[in-house]
């Protein structure tokens, strides 16, 4: 089930245009050993599935497919679990329709 959904989200993101700001992620996850409940929520709540568990069971973020909605900020910033900004001007998702 999980893999099926993962594939589907990637397919969806494939429709979109992005200008990736290589090496300058606009979202950062605070280093941790055991992820907080808020971080675990992001695995499912992020509409672009940018948050994944690594093999050590920690939550990692890959912002390349981010659609810049701010959901993870609302959930994860109050506790300091993530640091959130917009990408630099011109970078990130480039909506054709919006």
């Amino acid at each position, binding site marked *: 089930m999980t893999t099926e*959904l993962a594939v*589907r*989200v990637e397919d*969806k*993101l494939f*429709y*979109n245009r992005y*200008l990736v700001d290589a090496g300058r992620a606009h979202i950062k996850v605070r280093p941790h050993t055991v992820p907080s409940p808020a971080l675990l*929520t992001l695995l*499912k*709540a992020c*509409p*672009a*599935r940018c948050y994944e568990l690594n093999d050590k069971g920690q939550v990692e973020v890959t912002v390349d497919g981010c*659609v*810049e*909605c*701010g*959901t993870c*900020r*609302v*959930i994860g*910033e*109050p506790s300091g679990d993530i640091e*959130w*900004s*917009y*990408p*630099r*001007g*011109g970078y*990130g*998702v*480039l*909506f*054709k*329709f*919006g």
Partner: protein
Amino acid sequence: MIEERFDAIVVGAGMAGNAAALTLAQRGLKVLQLERGEYSGSKNVQGAILYADMLEKLIPDFREDAPLERHLVEQRFWMMDDRAHVGLHYRSDDFNEERPNRYTIIRAQFDKWFSSKVREAGATVLCETTVTELAQDAYGRVIGVRTDRHDGEVHADVVVLAEGVNGLLGTRADLRERPKPDNVALAVKEMHFLPRETIEARFNLKGDEGTVIEAAGTISRGMTGMGFIYANKECVSLGIGCLVADFQKTGETPYGLLERFKSHPSVAPLIEGSEVKEYSAHLIPEGGYNAIPQLYGEGWVVVGDAAQLNNAIHREGSNLAMTSGRIAAEAIFQVKSRKDPMTKENLSLYKKMLDDSFVIKDLKKYKDMPQLLHIQSQNFFLTYPQLVSKAMQSFVRVDGTPKTEKEKTTLRSFVKARSWTGLFGDAYRFARAWR
């Protein structure tokens, strides 16, 4: 970056920012508008419906060259369970008028056009520039903004924060709190392309007529949320949104909801064979009147989604954005005309003018609605749609059961699910919140 000083800096080029920048420039103020996208519109996401009245106040002849999709002649509300929908359907030829009232639009295209009007009016529009923070003096007065450009500080008498629902700058400067999970909905949307004739046949439209379907019920899995289907010329905008707090609580995925909504037997035939060309997501302010933050301060005002100005019940946002942007600009112009400084006290005029407009009046009317729908989400989005669907099926299915017996069964199912107290209580609470 820019040595010169401006009368006003507008942060953001969505509906609110463009309305503000246009109005300020039309009144002869020296305006700088900053936008982080590669062009105005490239970061903006909406369903989207455009309300003509509010745009006419800014650009009376917009119909001549604005990229509009379809004018709406019809509105459908669907209350859905897993296999059916009970619909309320309003269609009128009166909406085929010379100056139609509502249109579907595609935001990236529309906003680009809107921005061209802002430039024509004389504002300086600078894209690909992310504002990183507000520049404040020793007394905390906002005196300009800092951007991600080299030497990126610019100064102005007043900053109009039209930065969108996330309102990052305002939060960073402690002007207001970050949106809370129960005050914002996360909506995901896809653009489904189909031949024009196919859309017209499937939605029963001719020429540039358009229709809107708003859907609520079991599609949101008991969460506070809604689905929507908007007919554009050659594509269908389809999406679903629920409160972030509910996603947090249930562990549902936004794309999972979207896929289920698309596969619903009432929805699937409308988009069958379509080509999807974009997937987007956006937060929508849902907190209503009680979530409106401080709207003005020393050297700043906040407009549109950043001020949480969205009417969740009527699904209106862009018109509140446009109107708040225009009113803020008019207030600034009045202060400027009197040669008064842009102090908190003087800028309170914006709030006064906004209070007198439909924006605040409408939000006040529904001030208790967001909380009611959230607390009662299981009932309003799951239990009642299921009961109503069953009742309708029993009403229309002819199977030899006497009608009085059918009615008794239906009534019993309602009482069993909610109890008499529950039913009357829900009706009372709903009526009170609506009033």
